[in-house]
């Protein structure tokens, strides 16, 4: 189901009956929102004042909150693909898990996921070099591969583990992972900051080892280390910073020889 109509911007200025008439595609059939959901509540003229709550299971509903500019969406269970793509403002909260492409190409706003997220969180769509350009994504669980691909600005914080290629092609902004990574972090990055608190199997050979830092500053707050600092990706003459926890990574101890 393609539900880009579930945004505060589309709901603004409509009562519950008009909202139930909004059209969306289910496969190749066009349906109205009212056929698939029970719509209740009061409307508001300004999207800023709207809070949309979704109680059902929407893990098969794509593009919820796409291009939204303000207001709030709360999803009490799992959310589907492309949630909050190209979001410009406002907040989306998911109590369950989110799928892949969450916050793809987003420009501003906040997405908070209590569960885990899929691949390509905050990434650029195929072929584009404009990944996440602002805003914040917070994931309390795990995230998949290519987190923040082509990221240009903003913050992604993951409390759990991440897959491979976190911060691939990253240009600027911050990615913070408190759990483990499956490796290849920051491949082809040219700028920005990746902090990994857990274990990393290996660092790409195209990163140079710089130093050991006792703390890192991310978005104004200090994170206590110590961290190994790597700079790269040298294949792109990049100046990206990759911080990896010293205590969680005894496997990287051999780098200390190069100090």
């Amino acid at each position, binding site marked *: 189901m393609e539900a880009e109509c579930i945004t505060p911007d589309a709901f603004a200025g409509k009562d519950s009956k008009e909202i139930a008439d909004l059209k969306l595609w289910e496969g190749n059939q066009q349906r109205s929102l009212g056929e698939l959901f029970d719509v209740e509540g009061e409307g508001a003229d300004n999207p800023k004042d709207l809070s949309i709550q979704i109680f059902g299971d929407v893990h098969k509903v794509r593009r919820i909150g796409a291009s939204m500019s303000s207001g709030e969406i709360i999803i009490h269970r799992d959310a589907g693909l492309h949630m909050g793509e190209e979001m410009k403002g406002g907040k989306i909260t998911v109590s369950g898990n989110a799928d892949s492409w969450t916050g793809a190409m987003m420009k501003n706003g906040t997405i908070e996921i209590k569960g885990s997220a899929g691949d390509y969180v905050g990434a*650029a*769509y*195929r*072929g*584009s*070099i404009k990944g996440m350009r602002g805003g914040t994504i917070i994931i309390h669980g795990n995230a998949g591969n290519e987190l923040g691909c082509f990221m240009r600005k903003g913050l992604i914080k993951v409390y759990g583990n991440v897959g491979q290629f976190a911060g691939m092609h990253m240009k600027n902004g911050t990615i913070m992972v408190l759990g483990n990574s499956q490796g290849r972090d920051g491949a082809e990055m040219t700028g920005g900051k990746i902090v990994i608190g857990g274990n990393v199997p290996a660092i790409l050979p195209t990163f140079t080892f710089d130093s050991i830092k006792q703390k890192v500053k991310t978005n104004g707050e200090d994170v206590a280390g110590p961290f190994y600092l790597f700079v790269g990706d040298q294949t792109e003459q990049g100046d990206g910073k990759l911080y990896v926890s010293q205590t969680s990574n005894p496997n990287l101890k051999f780098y200390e020889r190069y100090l």
Partner: protein
Amino acid sequence: MAELLIKNGFVYDPLNGINGERMDIAVKDGKIVEKVKGRGKKVIDASGMIVMPGGVDIHSHIAGAKVNAGRMLRPEDHFKDVEAKTDKTRSGVGHSIPSTFTTGYRYAKMGYTTVMDPAMPPLKARHTHEELNDTPIIDKGSYPLLGDCWFVLEFLKKGMIKECAAYVAWTMEATRGYVIKLVNPGGLEAWGFGRNVRNIDDVVLNFDISPREIIQGLCKVNQLLHMPHTIHVHTNNLGKPGNYVTTLETMKCVEHLANNGNPVIHVTHCQFSAFKGDDWRTFESGAEEIAKYVNTHSHVTTDMGQVVFTDTTTMTADGPFQYILYQLSHNKWVNSDVETETSTGIVPFRYKRSSFVHATQWSIGLELALLIEDPWKIYMTTDHPNAAPFIYYPKIVSWLMSRAAREKLLKKMNKRAVHKSLLPTIDREYTFNELAIATRAGQAKALGLKNKGHLGVGADADIAIYNINPQTVDPSKKYKLIRKAFKHAAYTIKDGQIAVKDGEIVRSVQGKTFWVKVKASRSLREIVPKLKEAFEDYYTVQYENYIVPEHYLAVSSPVQVKAEV
């Protein structure tokens, strides 16, 4: 077939000397006729509207292997611009490189009915025609790239003009091509070895021939074969500061071949070939020099290659030039060398108002169009999609017709570029008649398409009707209305059938594919055994599979010419 009468429109038909007269146009069986009598005739009331021949585009990369590689390179160009399927049309995608069906529909919506794809590697002819078959409504043709072909280079080196003509005639038939196209003559052959040529007297690697000899040789071949169009040249050093000198030399080198004041060379997307200065910092416009030469010589025609500030995809057969663009933009790119024939390069590109170079390029295109006095010598193109996608033609129309429109944009552009630009000193504004020449009549005439670009009796009934009243609307002031009218034609009539109404497709018809069939003496066939031998030695395909059979074209329309050999 139904009869059609277009009543009371303001008709602009420069080839027949009709300049905004209010008259009726009658159509029968897809042709324009003196009058229609039948009771069942359909009548279109065009009062208060402009009636012009259907638009003709002499240079627009709409099909072929290179265009398709561009589509694959740029998914981000597609997902933002999606056309849903309707009852009458198929779905499609694409901003700068639209899919085939969308290309046809969008051209038709602007009132265009004939579009030429200007760069077909002969080896990829089959693919090109497959795509052209799938491009609806418009008539089309394709130009085989011959300026770097081994056969041509070898024949010309040995001075065998007649044999070269025979080969070119064979290629036109084998690839169903329409025009002899030269792209950076000699440079592409050198690019196969990572080199380029520096000027038109440089020596081409391995062939001991200069670009000058290639241009002159193919120009002579063109005359021997009596081709409908002249040679179509993308100059050496294109896209490099200071290249206007090369462009002038290219024009001068065929000056002595001119006969009866007819054009013998078409220098295409001239904007890219009119750069002055030593490097990008001292970059400036060479439009004045080029315009001065074109104004005083009758053997040259050109087209604009006008830049519009937008995101687009550059694609030419000029591999070395595309490599420079890649180095400038650091964007992703595609490059290839097509066996013994040509090369290709594709680089996504964004033209920015704030950039000194891009803003100057914008200015050069318009300076050329406005400083070249005779509209029969310069045509409106964007070299789609190199300088801009063709959907921006209405904007260019407004810049040509309105000084105010130009000045409005000049205010928002790079200040240094504006300071150096000649545009603020140019008062000229195109009239509707001049516009009709630059967008249809002139192009059709240059292409030698006798039934296109005019509304005389016997012409193909390709007609565009725009909802604008030339008596009440002053294009110089109301340029926004002009843009709107030219963006969505009130009617586009193709072969007597209404294809577009009020800017929407109402009927998708199949257009023709033009190609040149050379009628010559038997001697031309004598080169075939030699070709077969060469195919065994050099090509990855067999001679027999190389030839595109005529039945491969959806609607084949051969243009017969009688060669002098």
